[in-house]
């Protein structure tokens, strides 16, 4: 499947294509085998060959190290988290830190804190220098686009407060909620560093970003939740602002590109559910029905499907995107399903899911008269780094 390449900073990732490093490594290993076969029988050549191979491997090692260091997010994450923690006095540090094996690490949600009590240190409780360091940490896990999205959602609390103060939205609920753009909690689990497992989270109303890092190499970033209320600002100086426009429009574009037979498979219900089906469950299983499979889509339609996936993946740092796309491709792009529920027309209640063998994207826009989005990327086995932690525990056990 050839989808349009997606640009993430300096890295170009074509969904469905292998990432750069494995491809090049594979190609180098082929050359290596050929080289060894041709020189095996000549002693003089063998000696020369040994030096050349060592020099060659050293160069490749340095090159791979440089590539990995420049594109990998765990090291900058650990540095940023350490710097942030170092800026906190003991009482704040006690609020912001938890043991890695604490149950708090998987205590995640996306509704207001008045409904879903949270722990951690709020941005509002930080000094300006501490806030900058907290934001520096957030930037290490996200792309420029993702960071813009996360911070715009936080700022949207001000818009929601104005709407509710004027009696709009769910004004009764608004009276119970603070709607505060700095009521977002930063939490660090374990000790940031190059060894062992640690994690961090930034969470509050409509933002939940959960990162797990193992041995300074592997990083996972699910559950990844973004929401937006209002989905579209309809009055005032921010009129027309739609923070999650890509998430909404990309899926509708795909739906509209389907022929009637395909659409009959994709539309699983004429009524949209009132929220994402998986909510804030700790573990999730594949949902049924899965809708239309990518195997039943034309190439151009599959490109549109990849754009839906990209609307979510591209919020993350480039190495996290590359890992996700590799995993998704290895599990089989043709096995990804797209399901829609509710009406197709903009402004009407709707829901969709994109589900592969390993992951689930869910999106719902039904609340507040279909002007309130919840969207999430989940990993069936890898939420909170469960899969990489299992592998890590096996290697430690041996």
């Amino acid at each position, binding site marked *: 499947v050839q989808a349009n390449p997606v640009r993430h900073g300096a890295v170009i990732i074509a969904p469905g294509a292998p990432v750069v490093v494995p491809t090049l490594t594979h190609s180098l290993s082929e050359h290596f085998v050929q080289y060894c076969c041709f020189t095996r029988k000549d002693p003089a050549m063998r000696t020369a060959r040994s030096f050349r191979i060592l020099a060659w491997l050293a160069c490749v090692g340095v090159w791979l190290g440089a590539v990995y260091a420049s594109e990998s997010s765990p090291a900058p994450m650990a540095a940023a988290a350490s710097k942030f923690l170092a800026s906190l006095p003991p009482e704040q540090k006690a609020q912001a830190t938890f043991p890695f094996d604490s149950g708090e690490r998987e205590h995640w949600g996306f509704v207001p804190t008045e409904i879903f009590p949270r722990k951690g240190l709020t941005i509002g409780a930080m000094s300006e220098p501490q806030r900058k360091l907290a934001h520096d940490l957030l930037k290490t896990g996200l792309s*420029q686009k993702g960071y*813009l999205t996360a911070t*715009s959602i936080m*700022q949207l609390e001000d818009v929601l407060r104005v709407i509710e103060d004027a009696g709009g939205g769910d004004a009764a609920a608004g009276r119970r909620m603070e709607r505060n753009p700095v009521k977002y909690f930063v939490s660090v689990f374990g000790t940031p560093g190059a060894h062992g497992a640690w994690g961090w989270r930034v969470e509050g109303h409509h933002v939940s970003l959960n990162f797990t890092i193992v041995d300074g190499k592997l990083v996972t970033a699910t559950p990844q939740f973004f929401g937006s209320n209002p989905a*579209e600002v309809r009055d*005032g*100086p*921010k009129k*027309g*602002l739609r923070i999650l426009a890509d998430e909404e429009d990309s899926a509708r574009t795909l739906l509209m590109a389907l022929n009637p037979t395909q659409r009959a498979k994709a539309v699983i219900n004429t009524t949209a559910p009132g929220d994402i089906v998986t909510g804030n469950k700790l573990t999730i299983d594949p949902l049924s029905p899965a809708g239309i499979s990518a195997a039943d889509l034309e190439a151009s339609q599959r490109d549109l499907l990849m754009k839906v996936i990209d609307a979510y993946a591209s919020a993350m740092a480039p190495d996290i995107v590359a890992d996700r796309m590799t995993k998704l491709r290895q599990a089989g792009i043709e096995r990804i399903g797209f399901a829609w529920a509710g009406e197709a027309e903009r402004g009407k209640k709707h829901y969709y899911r994109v589900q592969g063998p390993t992951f689930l994207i869910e999106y719902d826009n039904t609340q507040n008269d279909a002007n309130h989005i919840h969207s999430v990327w989940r990993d069936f086995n890898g939420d909170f780094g469960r899969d990489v932690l299992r592998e890590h525990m096996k290697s430690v056990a041996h």
Partner: protein
Amino acid sequence: MDSPDVNLWQSPVHAIDYLCKADTIPHRSEGEDVLLEFLPETVGRVLDLGSGDGRLLALAKLNRPNATAVALDFSPTMIDRLRARFAADTSIEVVVHDLAHPLPQLLGRFDAIISSFAIHHLPHRRKRSLYGELFELLNAGGVFCNLEHVASPTIALHHEFLAALSLAPDEEDPSNKLLDVETQLQWLRATGFDNVDCHWKWRELALLAGDKLQ
């Protein structure tokens, strides 16, 4: 619903109508003067987004004569005006491009990116992604200065602004997609710009700027 994505600026009538009124926009020259203050003294390469007839770029060249520049617009009328205005100046390249689409890959990098009353014609989503593209196009130490038409906090203030321009509400340019200063400053900061601020403002006219640090 979305503000309708209307953009009349490819229409020659719309473009000429604007040019007739461009000099009468109150306080415009104040904003331009402040913008020029923020251009580095030794600026090398300048990109002017939505150049129109080249008014802002001509001012920039007058103040920074050694600079080379790219003038970018999509209106055939404006492109003709730009080519005529800068015909004898080999340091200025005129590029046809619609800002609604990602910037051309081959523009190169710049020490300053300037714009005057253009970006507010783009949908908000495109404004946001454009700021990201501009950050990538700037050299370290570069500046982005956007003299912009922004949204008033209230309808009453918006109508007062229109009245100051001798316009009735129904005479407003339907291509306008105005957004408040605060949101745009927040986007610039989140994009990576430093020293982001609104350096000058008169009613709905504002100078938004940010640096890309060394």
